[in-house]
């Protein structure tokens, strides 16, 4: 059972019935500090935080609300206060001598609200003169809160299905339905482009084992057709694993303990198939969590390649033939925080878009300084806070999109796409269509056949408003198995 009464998001009833939460919170915090490496940062932050407020101006939420509780440094102080009081010698001594702060249930509730009003986009990190990473503090605080049961239900049920369910994926798509879905996509590719492009399953020894955000199979058919087309055209040896085909990792958003298990599950599938590399689909957080494969995967951990990196390399190598006609609409690009913030994937998608679009424009700011879509940190999966995501949290992004005058917003992230579509719907940007990068790439690939280009464009863009696309090509079988809990089935992260 879920209840909306305590926080802005649903948590399971068991979490609300837990007794003695302050003690449990401190025990969890102690265990995390003991076994993790967060203390090295917390020590430095606790000692020298200057409270200058520079981070405030960089935060899109604070820009909207102007509320002190939305200043990144204020939010981090909530956890640092607990750290100082209970885990530093001076704090313990001061408390013994003078009393003062004590962790209470109410304080835990305050943290529970605060740390889910932050998308952990880490934009503020770049503006802190002292190098404090408020996204790191949010990440740590969420894990500690999770150990006392404070987890948005939308995230929890997805992880439960992924790690303990029958389907081992966050959208609860059974393998037969997935195969039907892929068969349908192959037929679509054949009908539209007159090409035979299979979705290979369980190919032992394949170079790439493919892990998209599993919800793409339900919601982003064009992206997946683009992925398959690129792999096919470039002659890649690739496969989808039948035991695990989900790149989503909500552990990144609320628990390193879960994140570790999910990454290990993914690595296990690659080893089972004797695959050589992990190929991650268009998903920001799936990519970032896959970058933790070397952390959790041991010395035999397979290398991780994002599909944007792959497509760009192949385009550069001349292995993806393009039609002479480019995408005519005005196109802009939204950088998913999880792949762009540290500058790892910023240029490859731009180079691809510049090669295939005749009117490409940048949002400002962009790349490592981009604004979050407003649904990062897993919050996009929490439908009950949509008004918050597309309101104060997303307004800055809506303004950015409006300023570009773009008709198409490209974002190679399933979560960003969901959020941006809702953002456009709720902010009078209904004419703007939100698509994946491979969706557009598919439109301009020259297959050397007599495929119907006009139909291809229609298929790629959809005839109706943004967000409606994706439901059309969903096979009946896949639609039938989609879990009724929308919050649990649609999300990944920017």
């Amino acid at each position, binding site marked *: 059972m879920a209840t909306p009464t305590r926080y802005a998001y649903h948590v399971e009833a068991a979490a609300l019935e837990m007794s003695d939460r302050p003690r449990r919170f401190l025990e969890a915090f102690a265990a995390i500090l003991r076994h993790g490496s967060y203390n090295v940062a917390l020590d430095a932050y606790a000692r020298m935080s200057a409270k200058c407020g520079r981070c405030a101006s960089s935060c899109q939420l604070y820009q909207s609300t102007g509320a*002190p509780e939305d200043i990144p440094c204020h939010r981090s102080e909530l956890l640092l206060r607990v750290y100082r009081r209970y885990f530093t010698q001076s704090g313990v001594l001061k408390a013994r001598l003078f009393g003062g702060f004590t962790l209470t249930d109410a304080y835990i509730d305050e943290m529970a609200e605060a740390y889910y009003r932050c998308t952990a986009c880490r934009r503020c990190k770049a503006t802190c003169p002292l190098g404090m990473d408020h996204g790191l503090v949010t990440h740590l605080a969420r894990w500690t809160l999770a150990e006392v049961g404070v987890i948005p239900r939308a995230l929890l049920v997805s992880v439960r299905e992924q790690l303990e369910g029958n389907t081992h994926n966050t959208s609860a798509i059974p393998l037969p339905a997935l195969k039907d879905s892929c068969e349908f996509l192959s037929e679509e590719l054949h009908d539209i482009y007159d090409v035979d492009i299979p979705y290979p399953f369980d190919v032992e020894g394949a170079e790439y084992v493919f892990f998209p955000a599993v919800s793409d199979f339900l919601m982003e058919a064009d992206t997946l057709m683009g992925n398959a087309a690129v792999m096919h055209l470039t002659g890649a040896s690739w496969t989808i694993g039948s035991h695990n085909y989900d790149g989503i990792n909500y552990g990144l958003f609320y628990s390193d303990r879960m994140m570790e298990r999910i990454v290990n599950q993914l690595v296990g599938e690659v080893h089972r198939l004797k695959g050589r590399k992990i190929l991650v689909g268009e998903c920001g957080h799936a990519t970032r969590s896959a970058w933790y494969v070397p952390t959790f995967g041991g010395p035999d951990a397979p290398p991780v390649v994002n599909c944007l990196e792959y497509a760009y390399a192949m385009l550069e190598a001349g292995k993806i033939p393009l039609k002479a006609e480019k995408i005519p609409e005005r196109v802009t690009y939204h950088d998913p925080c999880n792949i762009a913030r540290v500058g790892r994937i910023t240029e490859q998608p731009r180079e691809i878009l510049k090669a295939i679009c005749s009117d490409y424009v940048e949002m400002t700011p962009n790349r490592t300084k981009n604004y979050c879509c407003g649904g990062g940190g897993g919050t996009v999966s929490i439908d009950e806070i949509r008004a918050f995501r597309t309101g104060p949290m997303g307004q800055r992004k809506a303004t950015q999109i409006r300023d570009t005058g773009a008709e198409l917003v490209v974002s190679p992230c399933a979560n960003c796409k969901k959020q941006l579509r809702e953002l456009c719907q709720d902010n009078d940007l209904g004419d703007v269509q939100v698509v994946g990068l491979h969706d557009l790439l598919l439109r301009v690939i020259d297959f050397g056949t007599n495929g119907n280009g006009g139909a291809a464009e229609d298929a790629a863009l959809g005839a109706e408003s943004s967000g409606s696309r994706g439901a059309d090509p969903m096979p009946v079988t896949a639609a039938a198995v989609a879990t009724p809990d929308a919050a649990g089935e649609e999300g990944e992260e920017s």
Partner: protein
Amino acid sequence: MNAWLHLARGPLFWTALVFMVLGLLRHLALTLWETARAYHRAGDKDIPVRRVLQDTGRWLFPLRHLGERWPYSLTTFAFHVGVILVPLFLAGHIELWRKGVGLSWPALPNAVSTVLTLVVIVAAFALVLERASARASRALGRFQDYALPLFIAVPFVSGLLVMHPVWNPFAADPTLLVHMLSADLLLFLVPLTKLSHMILLPLTQLVSELAWHFPPDAGSRVGVTLGKEGERI
């Protein structure tokens, strides 16, 4: 008065200086130790060294990154320049070091030191005003955030008056005593307050990066410690 001056210039100064140095060395040693430990435990030891160094250099010399509140940033920068240069390179201070322990080094011209001192004094008050006038920093501000800039100004104001007796409406010796006692207390406060960033700042970008490099089994170990290893999600 002479005894007080001797005390402030001698035992108190040395005590405060040693306390500050040892305190900062403790911070440095602990941070380096924990940093090394975090690196040793990290499952992924591939640290983006270039980015860390770039970010570190960027914030050690932040003039190109003044941001939206550039007057505040510029004031802070000017304040730091004066606070670092004047105590270390004032001719009178170097002369004291030469007499006391036989060490000396090139000094700033007194006119430059005077200007920098004035900059620090003005900047200290400006910082307090700017903090109070900006909504975000006002909301975050603690007692120490207002008190420290003003307290730092005390040895600079008194030092200016000592250097320029014609501007000094007070007696020379009490002014000198205030200068030395406030400076001694300031040294003492450095490792106990946010002023400790003077030693930790070069390391913060590295520690922020390293904290993301998890030990490979930290999650499992936390689960075991909390008795949750077999627990259903």
